[in-house]
């Protein structure tokens, strides 16, 4: 039986032993390397992996015991051999050196330079896995971000500090929308210190190029930090990329007081990489083969957003994910929706009808909208107007179904008015140009114009005064 002093000694021994190199793995399986006969290694420790030709890679301890240590290697295990693989256990968690100079740089998923302009310098070492924010320390987000996109500003308002994902599908215009938001987003009446952290997981080179070009054109590239782990990079690197990006974002927001917009695409690829590791380790899967801890794991990413009271900055997250088969009940969008503060849902049919952005506002939702709109924030009629538009537009869907059965001519006059309203709403209110930047007043006025297609008795969500002031003008 060891005493406490012995255990403390063991701890200092471990300090001495950390950094010592062990050679010869006992097993290599996908991104995982198993190592026996090491000194006691801590869970989650950072590992430096030395390849047979002397190159360095980074890894992290996934499982540790008296017998064997399991390490996941973020750059992949290509060309490693059993006898030739070396490992150094660093005795500390995986950290990222961060600094403001990372803005304007292109990095890989671990924060190493990818743009050929030399090493990335960081000063403060931060734990990549992050530490949960104490709920009592949070400040409830309530500042309205004007994106200039009517269906977002009017119906699913984005708030500074919110996490609001885009649920999209292959071939839909989500990248355009994310880039447009990044270009146009502003909090009116405040000249916040604004910057963007962009994380790409498993997306193609041209997607990365699209974003870089778009940032370049608007001249904000110096204010963007890009973490790219692209389709041809090792799949395991994707599991660390969003965490690296958020580690920088937290530093910029909570240490440097910046308003940070984090765009992460594509979260589905991230989840698939997690699934790969889970399968490799023989874990019991839950739905569709994804690991049972996917919810907690995603939460550790999405919850790294918001505001902290007494600090100036904020992290607003705009994750993009593609719904396999356009299925919103697929585990990735489903679990995301359970964690984020709403969602923006794309509909293929709308894009087919030439509507951009192809957002169906009915399944879309912004949960933080309630405290960020209305008098003093957007305009006093905004809450009721949005309510009314939702109610009326959802009736349009019923009428459309009915019309497809009995024919449009057979509809009552009222129902025909609803169709007309629906048409205006989609074609004029929702639909807009890639570069069109509408003010919130323009958006709300357009909403009233749409309601003008309906008789005033139908507008039960609005007060008499609001109708008198805005209706039919």
């Amino acid at each position, binding site marked *: 039986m060891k005493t406490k002093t012995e255990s403390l000694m063991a701890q200092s021994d471990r300090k001495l032993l950390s950094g010592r190199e062990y050679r010869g793995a006992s097993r290599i399986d996908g991104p995982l390397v198993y190592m026996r006969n090491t000194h006691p*290694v801590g869970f989650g420790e950072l590992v430096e992996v030395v390849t047979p030709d002397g190159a360095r890679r980074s890894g992290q301890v996934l499982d*540790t015991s008296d017998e064997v240590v399991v390490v996941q290697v973020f750059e992949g295990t290509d060309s490693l051999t059993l006898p030739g693989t070396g490992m150094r256990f660093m005795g500390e*968690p995986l950290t990222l050196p961060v600094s403001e100079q990372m803005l304007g740089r292109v990095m890989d998923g671990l924060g190493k330079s990818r743009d050929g302009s030399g090493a990335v310098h960081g000063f403060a070492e931060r734990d990549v896995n992050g*530490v949960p924010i104490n709920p009592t320390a949070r400040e409830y987000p309530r500042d309205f971000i004007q994106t200039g996109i009517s269906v977002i500003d009017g119906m699913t308002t984005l708030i500074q500090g919110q996490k609001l994902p885009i649920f999209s599908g292959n071939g839909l215009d989500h990248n355009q929308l994310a880039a447009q938001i990044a270009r146009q987003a502003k909090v009116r009446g405040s000249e916040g210190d604004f910057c963007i952290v962009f994380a790409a997981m498993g997306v193609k080179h041209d997607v990365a190029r699209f974003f870089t070009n778009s940032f370049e054109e608007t001249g904000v590239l110096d204010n963007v930090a890009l973490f790219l782990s692209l389709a041809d990079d090792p799949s395991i690197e994707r599991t660390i990329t969003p965490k690296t990006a958020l580690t920088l974002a937290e530093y910029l927001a909570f240490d440097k007081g910046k308003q940070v917009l984090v765009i992460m695409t594509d979260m589905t690829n991230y989840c698939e990489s997690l699934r790969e590791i889970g399968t490799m380790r023989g874990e019991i899967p*839950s739905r569709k083969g994804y690991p049972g801890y996917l*919810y*907690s794991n995603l939460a550790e990413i999405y919850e790294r957003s918001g505001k*902290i009271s007494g600090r100036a900055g904020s992290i607003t997250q705009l994750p993009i994910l593609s719904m396999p088969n356009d299925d919103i009940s697929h585990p990735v969008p489903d679990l995301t929706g359970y964690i984020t503060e709403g969602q923006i849902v794309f509909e293929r049919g709308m894009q087919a009808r030439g509507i951009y952005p192809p957002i169906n506002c009915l399944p879309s939702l912004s949960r933080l909208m309630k405290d960020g709109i209305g008098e003093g924030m957007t305009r006093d009629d905004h809450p009721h107007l949005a309510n009314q538009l*939702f109610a009326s537009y959802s009736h349009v869907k019923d009428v459309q179904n009915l019309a497809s059965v009995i024919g449009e001519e057979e509809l009552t006059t009222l129902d025909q008015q609803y169709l007309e309203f629906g048409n205006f709403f989609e074609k004029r209110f929702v639909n807009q140009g890639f570069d069109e930047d509408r003010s919130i007043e323009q958006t709300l006025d357009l909403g009233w114009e749409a309601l003008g297609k309906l008789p005033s008795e139908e507008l039960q969500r609005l007060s008499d005064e609001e109708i008198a002031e805005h209706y039919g003008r």
Partner: protein
Amino acid sequence: MKERIIGRVKRVNGPVLIIKDITDAMMMEMVRIGEQHLVGEVVKLYDGLATVQVYEDATGICPGDNVYGSGMSLSVELGPGLIGTIYDGIQRPLEKLMEASGAFISRGLSYDAVDHGKKWEFTPVIEAGASVHAGMVIASVEETSRVQHRIIIPPQYQSATLSEIAPSGSYTVEDVIATLVLPDGRQQKLTMLQKWPIRLPRPVSSRLALKQPLVTGLRVIDTLFPLAKGGTVAIPGGFGTGKTMTQHSIAQWCDADIIVYIGCGERGNEMTDVLREFPLLVDPRTGQSLMERTILIANTSNMPVSAREASIYTGITMAEYYRDQGYHVAIMADSTSRWAEALRELSGRMEEMPAEEGFPAYLPTRIAQFYERAGYMRNLSGSDGSVSIIGAVSPPGGDFSEPVTQHTKRFVRCFWGLDRQLASSRHYPAISWLDSYSEYLSDVKQWWNDHSEGAWHENRLRIMDLLQKEVRLQQIVKLVGPDALPDTQNFILEVCSLFKTAFLQQNAFDEVDRYCSVEKQVKMLSVILAYYEKGLEAINKGVPMVKVRRLRAVQEMARMRLTVKGDELETIDKIQLRLERSIDQIGGIYEN
């Protein structure tokens, strides 16, 4: 003090540890791991090994690290000072953690759940020399302006003589305020503080029949699917359908004395919202701040998963403690699915055989054990108190056939199913009137009829009947359009549609609408049924339906939930009068 070492770490697999060289570790013992002293609990003992669940992030734990025993089960502290506090899943006060480690939660911190230095005004209610028994109230302390904290004899002392009791005055929870002489002659000093293991239900004298509704102020619940005090209910629904909003509303407006709100694996901002909003909100019954009756537990989704598993028990143990003082307690768990998933994750890491969808085979037993801790009880002290459980369920893909929803359904007697379709069309609360049910109807019938001049039961049946008819009529309309129906049937659609917008929908953000008193609910239902009856009469006389629905009084009815304030209920009577009169008028024209 020399710490007791119960073993050393052998393996670390996330939050699950294997410990070797086990000495005298107890099952369910609370332990501290390594020199950081991370909190854990022994969950299995076998072959000189133990499995330990860690309640904090396991990063850095190393094979060989010492594990220290605490000698007791994972327990909560019970005493004055709980109310108004926000805790994590293992009852660490989050505000104290913030003072210690700032905005981000560090590991290995430990704090008393209630302030041990704070002085409370103590008033004994019993004299020295009395013989006392478990659960008996010996003193009272004003915990908040609305909660008298009753100091009770801890359940482990069946009977004793109270040899000393402190005089009125201010004391901390550590001061000795009474001394017992136990039957075996031993002396036992008592403070205002008790400890109780979270996984063990606190004993009661007996279970009583449920008779009173837990009035929530939400119309669709109180009028259509009431919950009884001491009852259990599940609120299942896909993401964004309104589980949290419904639970917040109930926490705000229900007529329980104490609220325990558990944010179990949900969003940080939602807890911040409660913390920010509750102190500002005023209870319509007592006029006092809602925080004065609320205990919060926040183990958000990014906090350690084992503590999430424990948070449910931490919450219910505190609820039982206030029940033992004779209070009606309502506990909200948002969401029990996250708790079940925590069980699944831990079970997976322990390499247990999974049953359905990877959940452990003991899932149904655990769910049952939790909901069984609800009830309307005769306490050991002879007083009555209740614990009602309102559990949110988050089914994957919004599909109610999954294991957690299905098993929960077996053990609760009330079910408020949230409907995605309703939520998308912004019909809130999106509680489906077709899927939901309450098995407490007959239990609370007497109470409700007493509060509605005997009308509630009958009126409820009438409106439910119309809603059922509507479903069939809607099917016809979908096929052939509304014109195919006679006006008498179209009028049923009309009344149901009005009932949905004017009664079932309730806007949680509207000052007036968010809380609806029993009296207002009764009147609103009655005026809507009067509209149906009178309108039908007129239509039978030949009045076209459009004429009826265009009446000014109908428009007023559609907005009464928003326009009629709680203290102006006679306005609804006036609307009803006007309505009946104007229908009679147009009826008169057509009669001739």
